[in-house]
């Protein structure tokens, strides 16, 4: 992490890494939200699928027993399709795409944390934010486990990532 000074590797004092078995929970939480809210089954895609540059990134913070961030990332067209699926054909504005993606992220994060035994009441969600644009980079200061699942919605990739601080 930091060079030029004495750094030491982790030894037997370390707790087993948290979150090692959480990827299936994240995948299931994602699939359930798409199925219940959008009425569609999504299939898992490989994370190496080319990602659409720019687009939309929704972010929800986790605080308390779990500290981290959940992000949902997709192209602008896909965000619009998600909004239409949630809100009907009247959903035609960028603002509604933002709201819809933010809500999806919120629900995936909430559904995921509900699946973790013992953390539900002790982990809370912040309010969602959404970044949209043609060119931006996203950098989280989370230093713990990070996991990603990519699903295909109307043949376009939607990336869901959990980055943990602890």
């Amino acid at each position, binding site marked *: 992490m930091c060079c030029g*000074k004495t750094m*030491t590797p*982790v030894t037997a004092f370390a707790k087993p890494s948290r979150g090692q078995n959480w990827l299936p929970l994240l995948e299931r939480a994602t699939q359930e939200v798409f199925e219940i809210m959008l009425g569609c089954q999504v299939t898992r895609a490989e994370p190496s699928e080319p990602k659409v540059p720019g687009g939309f990134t929704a972010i929800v913070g986790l605080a308390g027993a779990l500290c981290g961030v959940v992000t949902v990332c997709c192209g602008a067209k896909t965000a619009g399709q998600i909004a239409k699926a949630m809100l009907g054909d009247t959903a035609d504005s960028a603002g509604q795409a933002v709201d819809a993606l933010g809500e999806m992220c919120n629900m995936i994060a909430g559904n995921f944390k509900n699946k973790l035994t013992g953390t539900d009441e002790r982990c809370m969600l912040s309010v969602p934010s959404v970044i949209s644009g043609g060119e931006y980079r996203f950098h989280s200061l989370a*230093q713990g486990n990070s996991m990603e699942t990519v699903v295909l919605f109307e043949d376009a990739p939607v990336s869901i990532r959990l980055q943990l601080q602890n």
Partner: protein
Amino acid sequence: MDKITALIVDDSSVMRKIVERSLRQAGIELEKVVEASNGAEALTALQSNVVDLILCDINMPVMDGLEFVRQAAKLEKAKGIPIVMITTEGSESHVVQALTAGARGYIRKPFTPDQVKEHVLPVLGKKQ
């Protein structure tokens, strides 16, 4: 004043640099700085370094600061080494937990070099 070896424990490399700088600005001469990005690394560092002072964050992955203080209390090599917490967590319960676990001081971020001096010099046994 004798030079000391400080162990700085924080998962943020930015904060580790700032803590080191603040120690120097507080007039504390550093022979060596040992860094660890979590409590587990810090415990390992204590096995192979002679350390005079530990400055430790609370919220860290793998092993947090409070658990580190509890574990360090059981380590022969850590006996007598003062631990001062430096953290964003400002609630009274966190302060109480840290001090109960064995920390000798508690500095809330943000902090000035004067605050570092105020909390660190007494535990090093130095006059301000």
